[in-house]
């Protein structure tokens, strides 16, 4: 009886397995150490540890960092690029810019395919798709023979203006397939039929270098699961927030490049939805960094400006996640001019925070948290013991003494700066899109999110913080919740006033035909398919465009234009109704709905949280040291309500409920912290 759903999220340190039992409607979680040399080992270890019978599994989904790591380490099989004569260096010249504008010793990383592995053939197509120079077949065969001789396994074919006419690329692919049948060939216009050679070429090159590796990994895992008795499709989480089957991974492996990051964002969206918040900020704070994602109107923000490393864009729609160098291990220090700084340098896993007793003597956020007794002296249910005295010593020596502060005051200052930095990052990602963070809820998770969430929210005037039941393994939950999703696009440049509605419709229908074929290929039935059209527009003369949804009937273009003006005003605070609007691009998302676990709410009859497990003195800034109850999260019933301060301990995380706030355990066993000032006039007014 297939009645269990399994999601596996592979992280740098741990591989998390999330199991949802359809019968009992309960979720459980297992953590095993990751195995970077072969990530599949950890996946299968996790399955074994969780005592999952694969024959019982109805859906197995997986978020993986295999693709991301391969790109960072440049660990690829022998790959080559074939391009238009005169344009061998497009992926090396890039747009020429540097990430670090001022440090002349800090360089952009090199291209994914080295110059020696890039080859030119004689051919040229112009901007309108007209061949200027035909593909020289002799030259093409020469290059193909050369690549065969070099033992190349995977090839990217990238011709100039192929977005306007892909004929030469298609012909080149054919020749390569004839000459080297065993090689994988990616063509740029097939991967991304969009203008701008560097974006398109690099996306195709990324796809090519990942192809053998990623699809090899995915197929091995799928076979392993099948041998274990799993009868469904392995679903791989992709950057766009959906998933795909191994059959599609073979063609579009590059879509897995942000697989790992997407899971947390999807989980944040799910939790927001569950709690009834249309707008939410996901704050996923780990040891070295924090990932911030934005849910607005119930949807995650999607971006096409995405890259694993600066200068090497992967232009597929990806969930917009802002990663900043602030985590539990971020180092606090006083700079040369006497200012208190926090991060982005991190103590990492080695030596780690001072309190880990691993040789680190510089204070981190974790040290500040333990110094203030917010964090207890054991982690992971006693698996790790923390040395508070070492934390205090580091804070005293590096921060308190130089600033002439008491130790607690100094530790608190460290946390305040960390929280303000995170708040600034949230501000950047929200305000730049025209959103006011005060209209949002904050979903705090990751190992350290629940320690900082309430104070970050206060910094932003966000009224509510939600801490999900298993903050440390929330990303795996995200994997459980994804649909199959494909994103397609087509260039379409015309003034909106002059656009031919029938032609526009025909282009969308073309995209829909392709999208439907892909979904069928993955076994999605028609009734489970949802197609959504979007159209990118801009004021004539502008460089960037805004994507807005568009329907299919008469007048849909007019409606979309109206939406465009509105969105431009919302995002940038101005609109120009007298300015002609230009269509830039058409896009289609094709979603194949997969059945979701149905979580059942708990009954929330009890208000009383019960007796705390213990009390300890915790420091809360101007409120000073307070004797604070410490609750065991596992024993807090749904419906429990209490006033801060409180500390809530659990295996994978610690939640801080500051003074003057109210916490409740909701029907989904989330902790919701309401930041209204309890007992003050303000709260009475708000209530």
């Amino acid at each position, binding site marked *: 009886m297939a009645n269990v759903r399994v999601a596996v999220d592979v992280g740098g340190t741990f591989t998390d397995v999330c199991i949802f039992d359809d019968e009992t409607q309960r979720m459980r979680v297992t953590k095993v150490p990751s195995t970077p040399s072969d990530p599949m080992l950890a996946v299968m270890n996790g399955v074994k540890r969780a005592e999952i019978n694969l024959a019982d599994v109805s859906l197995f989904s997986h978020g993986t960092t295999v693709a991301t790591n391969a790109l960072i380490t440049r660990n690829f099989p022998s790959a080559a690029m074939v391009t238009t004569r*005169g344009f061998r*260096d497009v992926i090396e010249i890039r*747009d020429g810019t540097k990430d670090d*504008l001022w440090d002349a010793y800090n360089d952009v990383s090199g291209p994914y395919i080295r110059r020696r592995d890039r080859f030119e053939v004689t051919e040229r197509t112009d901007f309108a798709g007209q061949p200027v120079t035909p593909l020289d077949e002799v030259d093409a065969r020469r290059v193909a023979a050369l690549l065969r001789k070099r033992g190349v396994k995977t090839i990217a074919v990238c011709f100039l203006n192929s977005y306007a006419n892909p004929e030469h690329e298609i012909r080149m692919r054919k020749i390569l397939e004839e000459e080297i049948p065993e090689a994988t060939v990616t063509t740029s216009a097939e991967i991304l039929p969009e203008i701008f050679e560097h974006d398109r070429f690099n996306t195709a090159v990324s796809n090519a270098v990942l192809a053998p590796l990623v699809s090899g990994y995915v197929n091995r895992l799928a076979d392993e699961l099948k041998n274990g008795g799993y009868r469904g499709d392995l679903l791989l989480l992709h950057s766009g927030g959906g998933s795909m089957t191994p059959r599609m991974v073979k063609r579009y492996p590059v879509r897995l490049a942000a697989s790992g990051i997407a899971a947390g964002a999807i989980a944040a969206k799910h939790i927001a939805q569950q709690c009834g918040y249309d707008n939410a900020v996901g704050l996923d704070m780990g040891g070295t960094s924090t990932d911030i994602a934005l849910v607005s109107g119930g949807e995650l923000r999607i971006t096409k400006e995405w890259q694993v490393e600066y200068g090497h864009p992967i232009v597929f729609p990806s969930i917009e996640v802002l990663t900043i160098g602030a985590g539990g291990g971020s180092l606090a220090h006083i700079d040369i001019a*006497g200012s208190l700084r926090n991060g982005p340098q991190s103590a990492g896993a080695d030596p780690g925070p001072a309190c880990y007793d691993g040789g680190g003597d510089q204070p981190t956020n974790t040290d500040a948290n333990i110094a203030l007794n917010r964090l207890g002296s054991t982690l992971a249910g006693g698996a790790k013991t923390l040395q508070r005295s070492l934390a205090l010593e580091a804070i005293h020596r590096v921060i308190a003494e130089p600033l002439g502060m008491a130790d607690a005051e100094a530790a608190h200052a460290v946390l305040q*700066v960390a929280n303000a930095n995170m708040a600034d990052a949230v*501000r950047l990602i929200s305000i730049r899109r025209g959103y006011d963070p005060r209209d949002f809820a904050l979903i705090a998770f990751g190992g350290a999110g629940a320690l900082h969430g309430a104070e970050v929210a206060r910094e932003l005037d966000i009224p509510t913080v939600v801490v999900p039941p298993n903050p440390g393994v929330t990303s795996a939950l995200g994997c459980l919740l994804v649909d199959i999703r494909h994103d397609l696009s087509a260039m379409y440049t015309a003034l909106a006033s002059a656009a031919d509605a029938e032609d526009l419709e025909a282009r969308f229908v073309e995209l829909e035909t392709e999208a439907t074929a892909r979904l069928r290929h993955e076994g999605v039935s028609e009734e489970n398919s949802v197609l959504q059209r979007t159209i990118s527009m801009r004021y004539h*003369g502008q460089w960037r465009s805004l994507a807005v949804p568009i329907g299919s009937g008469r007048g849909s273009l007019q409606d979309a234009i109206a939406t465009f003006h509105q969105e431009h005003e919302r995002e940038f605070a101005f609109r120009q109704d007298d300015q002609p609007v230009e269509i830039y691009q058409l896009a289609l998302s094709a979603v194949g709905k997969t059945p979701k676990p149905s979580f059942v709410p708990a009954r929330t009859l009890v208000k009383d949280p019960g007796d705390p497990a213990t009390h300890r003195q915790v420091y809360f800034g101007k409120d000073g040291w307070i004797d604070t109850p410490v609750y065991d999260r596992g024993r807090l019933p749904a419906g429990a309500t209490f006033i801060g301060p409180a500390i809530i301990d659990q295996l994978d995380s610690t939640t801080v409920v500051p003074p003057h706030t109210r916490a409740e355990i909701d029907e989904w066993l989330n902790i919701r912290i309401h930041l209204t000032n309890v007992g003050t006039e303000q709260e009475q007014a708000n209530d």
Partner: protein
Amino acid sequence: MTDTAIAQQSGTSGANHTSHHGARALQGLDPVTFEVLKNAFATSVDLMSEQILRTCYSFVIYSRDFSSALCDADGNTVMQGSGDIAVHVGTLHFQCKAVLEEFGKDIHPNDVFAINDPYRGGTHFNDVSFIRPIFSEGEIIAFAQNKGHWADIGGNVPGSFDVNAKEHFGEGLRITPVRIWSKGVFLHDVAQLLVSNTRAPQQAMGDLHAQSEATAVCEREILRLVDKYSKQTVVAAMQETQDYVERIVRRRLVTLPQGTWETTDYIDFDPGKGEGLVPIKIKLTLDGEGIHYDLNDCAPAVATFLNSGYGTTFSAIYAGTKTFFPDIPLNSGFYAAVKADIGPEGTVVNAGWPFAVTGFCSGPYEKLMNGIFELWSQIMPERAMACAFNLEYLLVGGRDKRTESSPYFMWYDWMAGGWGGRASKDGAGASAPVFGPGLAVQPVEGQERLSPVLTTMHQIATDSGGPGRFRGGVGIEKGGMLTDATDTVMSYCCDRARSITWGIEGGLPSIPHGVWINKGTEDEKFLGSNFSSVPLESGDTFTRPSAGGGGFGDPLERLLGEVLDDVIDGYVSIGRAEADYGVVITEIDAELDEFEIDVPASEALRARIRSQRRGWLTEDAAAVAARYRSGETDMLDVIRRHGVILDWGSGELYPKTTVQFRALMERRSASHWK
């Protein structure tokens, strides 16, 4: 030092307080509030940049030629954008102060001002600033400013880069401080006057709105901070943010040597004076207190537009210095610690009204930046860097005949190139100019849609990096063909066809800049690195390289394996591996990247070069020129071995230039050879 820092920070005792701390304690600025506000100022400015990038009309702004700043009530810069173009650094406070001087008390809430005046500390006419006062309780507390490069600002040539201009009158529209919004009311007539003086009024109007709206984003953020922390605290933090930066610079100086350092870099020539390099002489003094530059010995203003006004000269000084203090935020505190005496008006670095200054970016700016790099390379040898390629703009403008309406087109192109070799690694190749390491080159596919120019090549130029123990980064070659156009002219704004991108510590020069027309045909012509309005016809081709960076250290000491790798990747040819590095490489099977280094032959060759190279540098220049004309000696040998400078088209010798170039090669290269 740390002790002083502590005393200034602590709020516990009055004994050691400096004036900084006094003010801060008074304003109740604890360390946390200060750090939070300092970072929030940066966010407020970055938000402004983010918005302009998403709403702009000018493709030059889109390519990141813009900047944003928060200035205080006196016009001093509190925070400049972290992604701003280098060349605007240290000019935004001048523009803000110009508005204050012009309007004084007559500044009101919801006013917006525009200015582009290079004679009031601006850059060039294309860079238009929008400045919005931020009021709290009826009083100005700050200004938000956004400056962006408009694609055209009128004048004689499309794109407003007229190389032949000697005075500014034909260059474009000069905007002295002017009000565009008055108390929230859009002054349509004034805006119309500005945009109507450009070739693309509709675009310009779009940018005018987009830039002005961007400043409103910063205003909202600052007012939010005022709400949260109080006006008094925010104002105090704006001052403290400047004092903080000044303090960092001064404290770093304590660990650095004191003394005076000098160097000279050159502009190719002054058409008013014939051949001969034009000196830009920089003196730097560190006295433990501050950083002092002296530019009193620079040449008089030149008879082209390659002059610099005081704003951009200061910008070069600040940006060049900042390269050696990359982590320090940019604001007026930095400008307080870095002082310069730029000499009287009328020089190439302090041109003044009405000298043409639009080409400052290819002229004095790059010379000052690279000269400053060279000076600091001696002070911080671990961050040393040889000369980078020169900023270059190629403009082709005319009528596009691909459509019946034959619209005006403007193909306005700039390239990436190579930066100098460094103390521990090769120079960065194919990178944006020092003028703006964030200035993106445009996609060819975008250019081809917009203009009847077919790009025939855009690739790394083999042998373009200056040889050295650490090679200069590689430059690029870009070629094009005019396909279907009429009434078309081409102009070029660059330099360093003669004052060639140089190496240091024994490293060698890279390659000259300059445009060729119809290269490889009977009509082949070398147009040099600065020309205006050369007519072009459909079917004409043109090509030009961007230089690589200069080399660092003696190329004969480069590791053999590194030279081999360069050959496999085609960064260096087998021929130049021998000529420049003395490394003999034989090809086994190039198709499989199989090459072999002949070690004994290489050792012998290196010994021979070592014994002869000083002689090559003093060989009769006229004889070298003759051998170039007859094809016996190639261009790279003429430059790298003989230090001789010619007209690269005709082979005509520039005797005076050669004497100057050989002197600088002696100093930067030969004197370091063992």
